[in-house]
């Protein structure tokens, strides 16, 4: 299921399908390894629900929700 990164909940796993950001924003995301095909797992949200923390490529990355809006992901069905 394709959705925005913002919509993911803690422990959701997904694969990045689109990174819609250019300029500095896009560059920073790419430098941190957020490119198409990257597998991510949401590991937490800050106490005020924003920013969001996710695990990818063996490390933890944080993003604000309005930055997460640039990223679309293919959410994996939760393995029961």
């Amino acid at each position, binding site marked *: 299921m394709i959705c925005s990164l913002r919509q993911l909940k803690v422990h959701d796993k997904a694969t990045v399908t689109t*990174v819609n950001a*250019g300029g*500095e*924003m*896009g*560059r*920073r*995301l*790419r*430098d*941190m*390894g*957020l*490119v*198409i*095909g*990257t597998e991510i797992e949401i*590991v*937490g949200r*800050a*106490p*005020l*629900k*924003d*920013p969001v*923390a996710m695990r990818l*490529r*063996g*490390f*933890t*990355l*944080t*993003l*604000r929700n309005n*930055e997460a809006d640039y990223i679309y992901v293919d959410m994996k069905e939760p393995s029961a």
Partner: protein
Amino acid sequence: MKTCTIAFAGNPNSGKTTLFNTVTGSHHHVGNYPGITVERKEGTIKFADSQLNIIDLPGCYSLTAYTQEELVSRQVLVEERPDVVVNVVDATKLERHLYLTVQFLELGIPVVVALNMMDDVRSKGITINVEALSEALNSAVCPTVARNGEGKQELLHQAILSSEQHHGAWQPLRLSYGPDVDPVLDEMEQLIAKRSFLTTRYPARWTAIKFLEGDDDLIEKGAVDHQTTTELQQIVENLRVHCEKTLHTFPEAIIADYRYGFIHALLRKDVLTIPTTDARLDITDNLDKVLTHRVLGPSIMMFMLYAMFQITFALGDYPMQLLNRLFTLIADLAKTIVPPGHFQSMLVSGVIDGVGGILSFVPLIMIMFIMIAFLEDSGYMARVAYMMDKVFRTFGLHGSSVMPFIISGGIAGGCAVPGVMAARTLRSPREKLATILTAPFMPCGAKIPVFILLIGAFFAEYRALIMFSITLVAWIMALLVARLLRSTLIRGESTPFVMELPPYRWPTLQGVMIHTWERTAEYIKKAGTVILAISILLWAGMTFPGPSEQQLEAYQHQKQQLQVAISHSNTTQQRQILDISLGQLESQHSATILKNSAAGQLGTMLEPISKLAGFDWRTNIALLGGVAAKELIVSTLGTAYSLGEVESANTTTLSQRIAADPQWNKVAAISAMLFVLLYAPCFVTLVVMARESSWKWACFALIFNSSIAFLLATLVYQIGIRLS
């Protein structure tokens, strides 16, 4: 002896600086790159018949031109052409860290990869085939553990070996960027080579790639050859349009994809195996469950910040008082050795007090940096930013702004000097500037005696309430002014909060100590010279031109009379009375000197304006003195009220005098407290602000903060007077 220049480079949190410290020990010095606040660390060591000059490049994720750290790293590599780059990578996050490695390889500079944190790799059960990785990267790869020096010797051997093999020749790696980009890249490369466009410094293909990535720095540098730049940009534009139409993406995104693709393929060839272990074993994840928990996280954070603040100022108090006493002793000594007069006065009030003022901050700064180094190196600081970001972003700041605010006095009693320095942890320039400019609004320890003095005079029964309100007003003002600045003068998109949450680690003692010492030494060196000069200037401003000849004559005449009377006095009672009269005479004389000094005249001159906010000339002089150091406000006020030297700790008499003075009333007291809270930062803070941003911004703070303070004080005074 051979010499070899080695640049240490790597991502933030790769252990690069730890490795640099382990390798160079104490043999290094810290400076700044010209014009910017990025630090330049260099060290020289002797190793196996060679002299190694080691440069520690600032941590960066990439070699684009978006941050100062990246630009500096590039500049050093291209302009100083070190013999070899030691690229420190965190071996547990190899995939991401190699992204920077690939960019070094594309630049062509000889690279030795330091495969750092091998202890974590082993404990996590990850295996890395070092030879295979070395072969795939066509560079030497050395496993290291920076924290204990494991692999250090081998790394340096490899670095020397690599520099000898290459003899300064660069061999750029040629990556394929796929069918859409490659032909365009070839075309650009040929054009660049043919025109010798920037080729003395940059490999042709690298320049081409940077143009495709839309690199402002290189495009600007290319402006010398306007025609080629325009042609190249046209080619890039065509590709950009093509990419957007047919692939819905950007050239730079394609380039990044292929780089990651290259790394992915490279790591698959039996180089890296990561066990699919249970995440429950990860200490960091478990700690984060508590430390960033919705309720527990902020509670623990508040406790940590409060504890840190308490420790800093409790521990810092003893050495601070010791230093103060030492300087009082030195001042007394100077008074006995040097004959009275202008020179003695300058030596004592200008030089000794000035130097004492600078050095008394040193214990605070040291302890604060030990704390910050600990919080940063342990990984907790990143969590604080993560938790606070939502609140601070609303005001155009960053989650990391919380630390400078608190240290500056966000919990009343801090100090803006270490506070402004603490803003270094902010990696986003606009947010950092806004933080630096607003942190001095906080009620620092030196402003508190002023509040206590005025509260004592007018609101003795509401002490706690008023102190609390002052802190609250400071926070509100700091955040609102930050918001105002961020939507006017420091306008611009908030810097993306794309941040790494590094794993928790115990900081190394050596790392924390080196970090602390570097910052402290820098403070003493830079602040010392400027502040000494200012301190002497201020002394002159508060001494000259001095009283008129008649006043002086009258004073000396009276003094002589009293002295004669004292020597003739018979009873101790009589003598005591005369001694008191002599003391009063001298206090009055000090007040006369002050009133006739440049500062005094300025204070009197400003009275018509300052009256709007309820300040008379005495307050004006004290406030002017407060620009040098807020501690001076109370003591200058004491001199102006002819009370002689007034100790900040004991202001009862002054408080009574002020309460009795018809110039003062409750409204004027509130207006004065508001003004003192918000007006110009003290000179030490201004110097530190200039160091962290620029003199332009420091001067801006001086004027802007004073204006805001005066405006508000006037508003409060005028409304208050009409209501009461």
